[in-house]
């Protein structure tokens, strides 16, 4: 037992694997982001009052909206890809193609939404 990695942090950050590596780390960032901020949201709503109102006010900030929407949308689309490929294991041979489809769905949806959020925030 125990971790025995021969890789430093900087080397770890510079690692670039195939397509699945990027989706893996973004899936993890997205899941972690949602877990942290939904926990805060439930706690803040439960506590209520000024503290709760302050914490929930975060959700009205456009930068936060873009971040949390990235988390939710990427996690949802990548999760659907993982689910489909894992429930139909024969499809795993086509994982690179599945990841390309995933980006083709994610990028326009996220780009359009981020544009709308920004336009609403900056255009008043």
């Amino acid at each position, binding site marked *: 037992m125990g971790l025995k990695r021969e890789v430093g942090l900087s080397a770890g950050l510079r690692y670039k694997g195939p397509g699945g590596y990027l989706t893996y780390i973004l899936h993890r960032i997205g899941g972690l982001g949602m*877990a942290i901020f939904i926990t805060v949201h439930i706690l803040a709503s439960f506590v209520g009052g000024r503290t709760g109102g302050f914490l929930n006010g975060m959700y009205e900030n456009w930068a936060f909206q873009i971040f949390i929407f990235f988390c939710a949308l990427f996690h949802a689309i990548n999760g659907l890809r*993982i689910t489909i490929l894992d429930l139909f*294991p024969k499809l795993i041979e086509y994982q690179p193609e599945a990841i390309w489809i995933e980006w083709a769905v994610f990028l326009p949806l996220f780009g359009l939404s981020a544009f709308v959020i920004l336009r609403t925030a900056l255009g008043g």
Partner: protein
Amino acid sequence: MTTKSRNLSIKQRGLTNFEAIMWIFTRLSALAIYGLILVGLIGALMMGAREQMNFADVMRWAFMPNVTHVQSTDLQDLNPWMSPFWKLTASALLLVATAHGVHGLVVIADDYIAGAGGRKFVRFLSVIMMVSLMGMGLWLIWTS
């Protein structure tokens, strides 16, 4: 081409231990979350969202169909939005998503905490976190 273990069907792999059961639970709960969000989305459109809400408000409702999420909209009548059906849907979404998310945190923690004692502690914490989040969430849903 020889069959790799990852290409085996789910039946052939067997779901015998906790990790394997949670592996399939994560996939199936993801599908359930998709389904519940779709129910919320369609329900909102049936209850007047087309004319009285913008798309961001519809999505906020779909991600958690709780009446507090539509209070700031132009909706004329909030009563259909707080029916027992929506409280049950929201509760189901809360329970499934909390279990899915907390197990995800355990999976991430396991990548960094490899000792048996540490992993036991992570599981202990995760159960406390899951139960308290479910409790607070249910209270919020059924009292709003």
